[in-house]
């Protein structure tokens, strides 16, 4: 809880003192008493001390000070009276009649005059006089249900209330007669002030209006753009208006006065003003602490005389002055002067009284920046002009409305506004058909939620693009790599195909076959010689042609294998016979396989299975569809079996040794590459055939993908 205010800003001619813990302290009143400046806040009573302001006593609901016979009193909004004594608030006791009257009342104003408290109340509007010493209720003057305002007036008092609830009129009760002052709006529970000036005239303020009058007539009426919180006359006679959201404005000898006060207080909400004996001005704010200004440097503007602090009898009240944007009042255009005598031709002026955002009051500003959920606005306006007839208004919310709206209502509602830029404009029309010269304008921006803000969308978009690019890049890289691998595999396949060609064009096979044919010739068996030579040339031709192709029909491969086995049979003097079994479901013309895959295994079966065997052997080559996309080829021999073949190889020089392993490993490599190209996983199985523990041959299973 705030107990102390310190200087937060300082210039040679001013200080701003503020509480760090409770910056929103409201300084409802300020006064000097016993050479000390005292403050009434919503938190309690404070006093100034050595460039600091310290909490004296804590109490809520206090409104203003009142001086009672050299003693300082404070009163609360609920009609409690306290004497400030030795850092304590001692409640002032009234008798039961007074207590009864003040019960459940809201106090509007209190004055102390002639040993009497004059207490005016808002609820059950009336004025009572309470004797300070006897604490007795002296008189009750119930006037109306509307607020009353009371100021000393000679030996009596002056009070104000609305003369008629249906009329916007203030009745100044100048006993025994009344002075009626037209008002812009009906009196209500808004902040009012009524003070007596040093020249014996009075000023009544309420919202935008300030009315100066004497006991017979209204002298001046002025309108100020901002709501008037407080009016104060200093010892030099200057009249200060404390404004809600408008700092202060000041008049000296009827002219505007600009000073460092108007400069420093800018658009702050000032709610209390006092001058100390040294001539320093003290300004209490709502939310900005306390300002103390040393003797002010003043600039007087040669504007039309608006206020006279002397009772200038020659000045007839015939004008209404509307002041807007006071700090820059030197621009004459901002001062609107209208002729009271021609009420209907006076352009009315519109003020924005209040803006509720999401139902909460705000300080009226020209520009608001709202976030996306602050999207419900209630705008309350006042239209003023010389006459007392009803005003008509037209308003538009640029950014939402497409056309002007017409109404006599003074509240405008906007709900669920979308993010965007808006300008609210309102003008009034008198019943004489004259429109305001200048509309009241508020602009505001509702910022979109972060997730629809440009930067957010941009970032998300950027992110998405980045992710997409990365994915594309990665995919591209992968594809590239895959392609590289694919190309590499293709290259390897080509090489291995060349190797396969080499293995089929095995020199041993070629020259030994030619030798066998030669033997027919030497034996004059030219028929056989020609027969085998044809086979040999066909095999050579087929090998040459087939190795140019990636795939050949199974039919062609079988034809080559037959030629090959026929020639090997010739070499081995019919040591073996062969069978080629093709499953009926295979379309040998349609189904294609890589060429020369099987020959090395057949060669192996002949030279390692059969050739080492005693007697004749048989080689079975079969083709089956393992499934729709997989061809199973089997090369089965009834030879000596792998184990024995290996033993025999190791003990004898065998010309086939090297070539055997080469040819088969080439097929294996080729199948691996084909698998890698197709993404399939297949292998070559070698099955050792046995019968009762004795080897009966070898079976090779080769799986070839068909697609």
């Amino acid at each position, binding site marked *: 809880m705030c107990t102390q205010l310190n200087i937060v800003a300082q210039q040679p001619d001013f200080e701003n003192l503020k509480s760090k813990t409770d910056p929103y302290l409201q300084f409802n009143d300020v006064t000097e008493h016993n050479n000390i400046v005292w403050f009434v806040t919503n938190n309690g009573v404070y006093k100034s001390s050595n460039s600091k302001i310290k909490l004296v006593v804590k109490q809520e609901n206090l409104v203003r000070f009142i001086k009672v016979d050299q003693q300082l009193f404070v009163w609360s909004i609920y009609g409690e009276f306290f004497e400030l004594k030795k850092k304590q608030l001692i409640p002032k006791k009234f008798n039961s009649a007074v207590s009864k009257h003040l019960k459940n009342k809201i106090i509007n104003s209190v004055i102390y005059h002639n040993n009497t408290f004059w207490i005016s109340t808002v609820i059950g509007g009336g004025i009572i006089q309470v004797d300070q010493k006897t604490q007795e209720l002296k008189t009750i003057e119930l006037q109306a249900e509307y607020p009353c305002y009371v100021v000393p007036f000679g030996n009596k008092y002056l009070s104000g209330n609305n003369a008629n609830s249906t009329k916007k009129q203030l009745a100044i009760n100048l006993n025994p007669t009344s002075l009626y002052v037209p008002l812009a709006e009906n009196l209500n529970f808004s902040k009012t002030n009524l003070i007596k000036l040093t020249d014996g005239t009075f000023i009544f303020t309420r919202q935008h209006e300030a009315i100066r009058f004497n006991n017979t007539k209204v002298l001046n009426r002025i309108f100020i753009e901002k709501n008037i919180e407080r009016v104060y006359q200093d010892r030099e006679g200057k009249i200060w208006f404390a404004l809600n959201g408008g700092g202060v404005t000041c008049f000296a000898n009827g002219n505007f006065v600009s000073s460092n006060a108007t400069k420093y207080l800018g658009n702050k909400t000032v709610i209390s003003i006092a001058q100390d004996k040294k001539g320093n001005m003290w300004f209490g704010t709502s939310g900005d602490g306390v300002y103390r200004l040393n003797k002010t440097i003043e600039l007087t503007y040669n504007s039309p005389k608006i206020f006279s602090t002397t009772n200038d009898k020659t000045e007839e009240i015939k004008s209404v002055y509307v002041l807007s944007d006071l700090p820059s009042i030197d621009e004459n255009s901002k001062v609107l002067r209208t002729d009271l005598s021609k009420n209907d031709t006076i352009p009315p002026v519109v003020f924005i009284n209040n803006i509720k955002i999401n139902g909460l009051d705000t300080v009226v500003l020209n520009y608001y920046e709202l976030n996306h959920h602050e999207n419900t606005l209630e705008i309350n306006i006042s239209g003023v002009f010389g006459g007392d007839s009803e005003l008509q208004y037209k308003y538009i919310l640029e950014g939402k409305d497409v056309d002007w709206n017409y109404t006599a209502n003074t509240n405008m509602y906007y709900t669920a506004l979308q993010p965007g830029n808006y300008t609210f404009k309102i003008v009034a029309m008198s019943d004489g058909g004259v429109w305001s010269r200048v509309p009241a304008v508020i602009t505001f921006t509702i910022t979109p939620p972060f997730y629809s803000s440009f930067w957010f969308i941009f970032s998300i978009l950027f992110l998405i693009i980045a992710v997409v690019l990365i994915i594309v890049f990665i995919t591209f890289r992968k594809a590239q790599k895959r392609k590289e691998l694919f190309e590499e595999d293709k290259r390897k396949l080509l090489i291995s195909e060349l190797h396969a060609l080499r293995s089929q064009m095995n020199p041993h096979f070629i020259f030994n076959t030619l030798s066998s044919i030669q033997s027919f010739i030497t034996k004059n068996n030219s*028929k056989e010689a*020609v*027969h085998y*030579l*044809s086979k040999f*040339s*066909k095999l050579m*031709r087929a090998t*040459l*042609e087939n190795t140019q192709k990636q795939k050949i*029909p199974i*039919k062609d491969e079988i034809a080559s294998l037959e030629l090959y086995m026929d020639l090997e049979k010739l070499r081995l003097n019919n040591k073996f016979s062969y069978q080629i079994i093709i499953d009926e479901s295979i*379309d040998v*013309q*349609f189904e294609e396989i890589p060429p020369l895959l099987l020959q090395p295994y057949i060669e192996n079966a002949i030279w390692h299975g059969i050739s080492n065997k005693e007697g004749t052997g048989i080689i079975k080559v079969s083709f089956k569809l393992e499934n*729709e*996309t997989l061809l199973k080829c089997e090369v089965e021999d009834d030879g000596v079996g792998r184990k024995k073949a290996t033993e025999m190889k190791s003990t004898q020089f065998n010309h086939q040794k090297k070539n055997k392993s080469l040819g088969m490993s080439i097929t294996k490599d080729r199948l691996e590459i084909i698998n890698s190209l197709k993404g399939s996983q297949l292998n070559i199985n070698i099955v050792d055939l046995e019968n009762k523990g004795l080897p009966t041959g070898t079976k090779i299973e080769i799986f070839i993908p*068909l*697609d």
Partner: protein
Amino acid sequence: MFKTIIVDDEKGCRDTLENLLQEIPEINVVAIVDSIALAQEAITNLQPQLVFLDIEMPGGTGFELLEKISPINFEIIFTTAYDQYAIKAIKYSALDYLLKPIDPDELAKTIQRFSVKKHDQDLINNKFKTLLNNINGETTHQKIAIPDDQGLSFIKITDILRFQSDGSYTYMYTVGKTKPTLISKPIGDYQEMLTNEQFIRIHRSHLVNLQHVTRYDKGEGGFALMSDNSKVEVSRRKKNEFIEALSSL
């Protein structure tokens, strides 16, 4: 007995063929020559019914002989050791050929076919015309002999949309004809012949001309849409090969 002339520049080949033909009673070799010029002379003088003509010879290919002799009122069996281009052209023209070294069994079969064949002069002329067209003409004007009920017709390969098998018969669809031609040969024969001409076997039953594929519709295997708006099924296993072939067009 058919009067026969052997034309070959290599002595070994001439001798082998002569020896092999001696075994065949229908054949009477009346001349053996080693050049185009001598062949022309021999043919003019002897009026043979059959000529074995080697394709690769110094001083002109066997095909040049055809251009010099008119009319060709004899049958020719071409012989070649290894000339894929020539073999293709001969096959398209439905002419006979033998590969060297000559297989006596194939020789016997070829002679057998020759001896039972009707020797229709128009047909012979057409075959040679087609052959010369295929040898000398633009690749886009290649023609292929298609056997039909009239004998043979010679169809521009680029006009063939596709083949569809029906057992051992084949339907051929061509541009501008709503009805397919029924061919009494299996589809594999045409696959063999036309694989290098941008034909692809996309299905057990379908051999299509890639030039006439207008679109590919995805599916298990998918469908090829042809220029005549027919829809041809693609075998699942041939899908990748087909797409690859399409994209490399």
